[in-house]
Each structure stands twice: as C-alpha cells, then as structure tokens.
C-alpha cells in the first residue's frame, strides 16, 4: 500500500515537474547529467571544407570530453544560412549544435530579408579558431608595401581589381573598410570560394587578392603580403604588418566556433563550453592549426557573445553603405 502511494506521489511529482518545465523535454534533472545521449554536431557547409576539417579534428576529443557519441552531419546551402536556420529551430537542449562562422552569422541576416535566422537566435558556445584576412599582390607587381598600393589605387581610382570570396562576406566588408579608411577606390571582384579566387588571382585576372591567412600561407613564395588582420603580428608572417599597425582601425578575420539555439539552459552551454575549451587548449591541435595558417582561439561563451556584439557594431554601418 505504501509502495503504491509512493508511486502515485512520484508520478504526480513528475507530472508537475514536466508541466513546470513547459514543453521542453529537458527537465532540471536532465541538465545535471547532460549529456546522457548522442549529440549532433552540424556543419552548415560541404563535407571536406575547413569547418568540416575542424569538426573532424575535434571529434574524437569531443566524444571523450562529453562521454557520449557525437555525430557530425552536413546541412550546406546559402553560405551557411540554410544550416543555421535549421539549427535555431531545433529544441534548445544542447544536443544539436552547429559550427558557426563570424562574420557570416552577423552579415547574412542583415543582407537578405528572407534569411531564416537572426544573429541573436544563436547562442555561441565557444570560438576556437581565427583566420586573419590579408591583402596581397604578386611579387612581380612591384608593389612592396601598403603605401605603394594605396598610392597606385589613388592614381587610378576604381581600376585596381581585388579578388575576394563572396558578396556581403568578410572579404567584401574588409575591402569596404579599407577603401573608407585609406580614402581610395578599388574594384571588388567576388568569387565563389578560396580555390576559384586564388586561381583567378594567380592567373593574373586581378591585381590583388583579399584572402585567408591559410591560403596566403600556401602561396607565400609568390606573393607580397601587404597587410593582414589580427591584433598582433602573426608567427607565420613575421614581416607582414597588421592593418592596425598601419593605422587602419580594422581587424578583418573569419572566426570559427560552435553554437546552439538561444534558450539552451545555461548549465548545458557551460558543459559544452568546457569541453570545447579543453580541446582548444590542446597543444597538438594548436600546433597543427598554426602550421596550416590559423590562429587558435580559446574564447568561451560569454566572451564570444561580447565579441559577436562588438563585431556587429563594427560591421553594421559598413554593410549599410555597401547595400
């Protein structure tokens, strides 16, 4: 009899608890033992791209840190927007996370009205990799420094062509910032990815290129890299000044991280954050990244949120001018 009563109370309690927790299946007890089942790590780009490679690099470590299997899936399309739309509509319980890229998640909702997500619908968990964007010309161009470059473009406004990747993208906005601050006029020619962009530039179709540090590193023997993003000089380009050092108030980078839908319980975000930061601190992974031309980051959830907010403030007016 006592036993039966106990069961009744227990079920009443559970019922109340689940009502209190609303429609979210993750009740408060669920958070404490998060994660207790398989997680999904979605990449909103094609398999084999840089975001995929990073996820694959983390995969084994992630499963160890979280103690649960992690499945990597792909949801490419619209430069990531299709995947991020999918992600913000998932249940915010931490079991579905996605790779996030900055400034993509800031710029896409601003540039197209039909983008299916808003920047603040994404809760960043961590940022683990930064890719500074640099401006380069070919060695045989005779242009040795930013000063030469600015001078040349001022002689021929709008005649100096610059290859970049994408429209309303990190490269596009970097070019706009540079134009504004150096008071020059360039011609931006967008390409559909690193491979086509580099190929067109090396083939002599454009005068200069705005490219990610990892791509510049591959061709550094053929290039004069005039300036590059980053707060301080990069280990792999010891002689290249940063835009900031040259007096431009800009720090163009592409940053990679991971996010979950907004509304995910704080404890869950912290648990994921802890796992990703642990991996980000791994010396071997950091070494690999540096060798490939990336800067390892170890930014947690709060810091990432602030960083995204700051980038948003910086880029919003720049984009408005482009549109």
């Amino acid at each position, binding site marked *: 009899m006592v036993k039966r009563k106990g069961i009744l109370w227990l079920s009443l309690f559970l019922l109340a608890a689940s009502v209190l927790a609303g429609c979210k299946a993750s009740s408060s007890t669920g958070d404490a033992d998060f994660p207790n089942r398989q997680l999904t790590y979605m990449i909103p780009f094609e398999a084999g791209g840089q975001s995929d490679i990073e996820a694959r690099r983390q995969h084994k470590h992630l499963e160890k840190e979280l103690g649960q299997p992690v499945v990597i899936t792909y949801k490419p399309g619209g430069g990531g927007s299709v995947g991020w739309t999918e992600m913000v509509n998932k249940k915010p319980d931490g079991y579905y996370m996605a790779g996030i890229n900055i400034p993509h998640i800031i710029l896409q909702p601003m540039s197209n009205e039909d983008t299916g997500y808003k920047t603040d619908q994404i809760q960043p968990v961590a940022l683990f990799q930064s890719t500074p964007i640099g401006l380069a010309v070919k060695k045989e161009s005779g242009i040795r420094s930013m000063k030469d470059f600015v001078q040349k473009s001022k002689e021929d406004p709008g*005649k100096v062509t610059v290859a970049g990747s994408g429209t309303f993208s990190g490269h596009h906005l970097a070019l706009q910032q540079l134009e504004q601050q150096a008071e020059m006029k360039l011609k931006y020619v967008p390409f559909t990815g690193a*491979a086509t962009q580099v190929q067109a530039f090396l083939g002599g179709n454009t005068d200069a290129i705005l490219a990610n540090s990892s791509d510049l590193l591959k061709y550094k023997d053929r290039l004069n890299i005039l300036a590059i993003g980053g707060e301080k000089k990069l280990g792999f380009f010891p002689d290249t000044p940063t835009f900031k050092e040259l007096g431009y108030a800009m720090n163009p980078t592409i940053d990679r991280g991971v996010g979950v839908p907004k509304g995910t319980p704080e404890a869950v975000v912290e648990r994921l954050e802890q796992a990703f930061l642990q991996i980000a601190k791994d010396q071997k992974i950091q070494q690999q990244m540096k060798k490939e031309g990336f800067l390892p980051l170890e930014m947690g959830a709060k810091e990432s949120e602030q960083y995204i907010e700051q980038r948003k403030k910086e880029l919003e007016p720049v984009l408005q001018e482009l549109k």
Partner: protein
Amino acid sequence: MWETVLSALMDPVNALFLVGGVAGGIVVGALPGLTATMALALMLPFTFSMSPEPALIMLGGIYIGAIYGGSISAILINTPGTPSSIATTFDGYPMTRQGKPEQALVTAAFSSGIGGVLGGLTLLFLSPALADLALQFGPPEFFWVAIFGLTIIATLSAGSLLKGMIGGCLGLMLSTVGIAPIGGESRFTFGFSPLQGGLDLVVMLIGLFCIPEVLAMVDRKRVAKQGLALKREKGVAGGVIKKLVRQPLLLLRSSIVGIITGIIPGAGGNIASLLSYDLAVRFDKKHKDYGKGRMEGVVASEASNNAEVGGSLVPLLSLGIPGAAPAAVLMGALLIQGITPGPDLYTRYPDLVYTFIIAFIIANFVMFVMAFYGARYVARMIDLPADVLLPMIVMLTVIGSFAIRNSYLDVCMMLGFGIAGYFLKKVGFEPGPIVLGIILGPIAETGLAQSMLLGQAEGGVWQIFFTRPITLVLIVLSLISLLSAVYIQTSRAGWKAGRRDAETCDAD
C-alpha cells in the same frame, strides 16, 4: 628515390588500403546521392592518424572507384550515381533495356580503366607543364566554356532541337534559385529560407533521370507485361573488350577531353563526360544510333570522366589548386599531413608524390579487374522481378536525395521534379538539356558577372570577352559546334524539317 617508391608500393598495408579504397569507392559511387566528394570527405578523418602514403593511396583509390561506380547505377537504373555519369545513362541504360547490362558494365569498366590510366600518365609526365593551363582560365574563359557547353544541347535533345533548347533554358533558370553567387541577393526563394541554398544538382539528377524511368517501367509492365530481362550469353566480357580495342581513337579522344576538362578548375567530370559524348556523336557516322544503346556512347562518357580524375589532380599537385570538388578534399588531406601542395611539392616530397601517382595508376587496373569480374553478378540485379526492383530503386532515391544535404525538402523536390520529368519526357523533353542548363548556369553567370566587373575596371565592359586568346578559341569552337549541329539536323531530318529547326535556332 625509385627504391623508396617501389618499396612503398610493395608494402602490403599500402596495397590493402589501395584495394579497400577502390572497392569502397565503387560501392559509394554506385549509390545515387553519394558522390565521390562525399566518399572522400567521410574517409578524411580516418587519414588523420595515418602516415601520408597509405592515406593518399586510399583516397586516390576511393576517388577512382567512386567515379567508375557512378556508371553502375547509370547503366542499371538510369540514375547517374555521381554527376560524372550523366552521359553514361544515355546509351548505358538503353543497353540494359535490351538485356545487355553486362556488356554495358564491361564497356564502362574498360573505358574507365583506359581513361584513368591515361589521366595518371599525364599526371606522371606532363603535370608541371600542363598545370599552367589551369591559370589561363579566368572569368571570360569560363563564360565561354559555359556557352560552348550549351551548344551540345543539339546532341542531347533526342528529337526536337527546339524542345532541347527550351529544356536548356529551363535548366538555366532553375540554376538561379538561391543566393546569387555574385551580388549576394536571394532569388526565387519566395521568402522561404531553405531555398536560399538553391536546387542541388544531385537531387535534380535523381529526380529527372530515375523517377520518370521508374514510372515508365510501371507503365510498361502494366501495358505490355514486360519487364527487364538479362540475355544470358557466354563470353560477353571478352567480346566487348575485343570490340573496344578496335576503337583507339575514340578512347584517346575521350580521355584527352577528360584530362583537359579536369585541369580546368571549376569544370568537373560531369562536363567532361557530356562534352566527350557530344564529340562521339558528331564524329560517328552512325550518329542516329546514339541514345538507343550504342556502346560507343558509354565509352565516350566513361573514358572521359575517369581521365578527368587524373586531370583534376594536375593543378592540385603542381599549384595547390584543386581541379574539381573531390580534388579539393584530397587537398584537405594533404594539408592535414602537413604537406602543402604547390610548385615545390615534386622537389620536396618526390617519394610521396611519385608513390601516390604510380599507386593511382595501379588503382585503375585494380578497379578494372574488380569491375570486369563483378559485372556479370551486378548485371543480374535487373533479373529481379519489377515489384521487388522498383520499390528498392525508389527507396534508394529517397535515401540518396536526403543524404546529399540532410534535407527533407530535397526529398520532396526530387519527387516533385521526378513526376514533372515523367510528364515532360512524355511530351518530348529529355532530361539531358535541363541538367546541362543546371550545371552550366552558375558557370556562365559567375563568368559573365566577374568579367563585367573586370571589364569596368579596364574601362569597357565588353572587350574582355573577345580579346583574350583562349576566349577567341572558345568562340570559334562554339560557332563550329553550333553550325555543325544545324548541319547535322538538316541532313538528318531531311531538308524541310531541318529548315524548320534552323529557323527556330536563328530565332533564339
């Protein structure tokens, strides 16, 4: 150096990875929706902990296997397993319907092997010399490549040239859905954000090629009570190869088309096989037999798309620029190993590079042997009763179209376009020209927009399209292709019918 290369090649572990890679690639390639790029990307993490030789050897094997594997489903169920096998369906599937799937499969295996080996030899001997060709192609050249590609609509539209052109336009229009490659604005999404990603080529291929055929099979079974049946003959495979050996010119020409298309970044195996098929039709006196199960059609497509594999690796190894999407994944594998492809790759890592290239050539032989002996077993699949075979095919198409982007929308699109394709085919619209438009649309568009931007910087928008040497060659080729198509049409269909086609052609 050659001692190290030889000992690396003799290493049983490497041999195991080579054979495993090829076999795995064939299986994945044969499944519609699972492309060579995906097969490589899925295996990429396993190479992280491997040493460079076996890693590259395995990935090379997968690449080769998957491109051949795509022909299996193209031949058996009219569905290109990878986009590289689109042209294989044109004659491969009719051969199956005539009860000769084994012949078609052996043809594909032999031509793929020859194409692959020639591609590999190019990689071995001509790589640095040809790599610069990749850099000669800028936006204006890509624009004209796309225009040249569109001229083969004439070959792909089985009956009416006009209907082929309408199909091509439909394809071009479908290719504009989603975020514009240049300009960044959303087009034809109707405010529905999942459409920002555009229509996926593989989804369209499955929908337009496979579903109409499944429906037609149901039709035929209902009306004539006839299904597919394998004609059992002995010594088929040997006979096929004897015939093929007498066609060195066809094999060579198709392979060269494949190699060149491969070297040009951005133009992949799908374009290679379509162009080569087009040439085969034009150079063959029996051009009327194409599309009705002519073996040469399969040769042209398959020799070309496997030669393209070697070609796509030429700019990758010598310049660090992948010549096709799967090659880009291989580049990822190299980088993870700490090896940066580029001009000094051959001098800095000669052992690795030559081991890889020679293993690549060997992998083509392995692929041929597997495909040759497997053909007779795989061909038996069509002997399954239709009520078992058809549901199986439909299930495969659903899985395949979902797998490509993990999207239910894609499954709906595949079914929707499949049903539309069935009715379109009934009124004489072939899937070939539509798909050609979808493939070439983005290339033409980005080439046009980028060239105009470059032209603006030079002071005139249009000169850039006509003043560069390669653009001139491409313009001349396009004109020849267009005029000869009209000529063939006139001589084929008689003066009167031909005149009608020529006029509609002018009107466009």
